[in-house]
């Protein structure tokens, strides 16, 4: 029998409480339980984390790099969304 290719999972680790889970890499596992165990062995051999998420790679929808302009350019031209756009006299102090 030919074994199907083992599914790919993306691994996210929270390095300590109070921080967000961060993408650290990917791995192959046939199911979620094995993916978690493999993530522990591959990505946390030196106390890198307190919590692991594994997500099937196929469940991720990514933006298209070719549409980067359309997606992100509108935000770049709106400098009035940043606090430094507004003038506050020095005498007023920190705001």
């Amino acid at each position, binding site marked *: 029998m030919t074994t199907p*290719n*083992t599914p790919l999972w993306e691994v996210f680790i929270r390095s300590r409480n109070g921080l967000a889970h961060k993408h650290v*890499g*990917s791995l*192959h596992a*046939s199911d979620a339980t094995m993916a978690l165990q493999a993530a522990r062995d*591959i990505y946390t*051999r030196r106390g890198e984390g307190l919590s692991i998420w594994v997500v099937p790679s196929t469940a991720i929808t990514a933006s298209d790099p070719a549409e980067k302009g359309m997606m992100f350019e509108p935000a770049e031209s709106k400098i009035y969304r940043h606090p430094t756009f507004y003038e506050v006299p020095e005498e007023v102090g920190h705001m």
Partner: protein
Amino acid sequence: MYTQALNTAETDDRGLEDAARAAQFQARIDAEERIEPNDWMPAAYRKTLTRQISQHAHSEIVGMLPEGNWITRAPTLRRKAALLAKVQDECGHGLYLYAAAETLGTSREELVDAMLAGKAKYSSIFNYPALTWADIGTIGWLVDGAAIMNQIPLCRCSYGPYARAMIRVCKEESFHQRQGYEIMLTLCRGSDEQKAMAQDALNRWWWPVLMMFGPPDATSQHSDVSTKWKIKRFSNDELRQKFVDATVPQAQYLGLTIPDPGMIQDAEGHWRYSEIDWTEFKQVLAGNGPCNRDRMAERREAHEEGAWVREAAAAYAAKRAQRQTAQAAE
């Protein structure tokens, strides 16, 4: 260093690509931008990286064999625990690298099959045997030392996933080199026999380690394009020289002699080594090194013996998925 058998003919594919896109791509590289998996890239860039990263991954996996051989015979529990952790790291490095290679579009299964079929190479250094415990010290000190020299510039490689994998690998690799040097230091401070054992291991590993950096710049044809694409940041000879300059004082501290009577320090402080025997390198690459056949046989055996595990895991996952579908339908 991990791609000693690059097929340069494939770089000709670039001529077929849309010239404008290729120019845009090169401009991004020149601006030190990182290339990510879904970005457009020339087919030859993809091929070169798939080959380099997968061969690097195969090297990590095959690299477990010479050292794994000594886990049960480590002289103390402390050494055994350290060696076990090191070999486990090598496996982890192989897995990070396969994952990075896969982002270029070839599955891990295909990459592994190419290696088992003898179509993909791994670093020639792992075709030498680890004969004594001193070899374990020497491998950590010199083989991992040479690997670090090569991998640090790869942390700034133009391909994002490869650069990120290298950052993780480099963080872990430093322990490997230090544990190797500590083994050598212990042997060199021990009995005359122990020191002789350390010297013998250095004698056998020195030249193969220098060969790890690949052919001399004058004869290496594939460096140009890798340099242009910022996959490679230093030439083979530059890295080799850096390694030699870093290693000579370490050997002196141990009281060991580098097996190169012609070695001299030049006016700028660089240690100039003698001519390397490239016929030996070519022989090992061609499959005629001391352990080529053993390593391949062991990898194939491990792969075949693990087949039932992969099948069982796949069958279990399929059964669970089926049950979930049935429950959902109720």
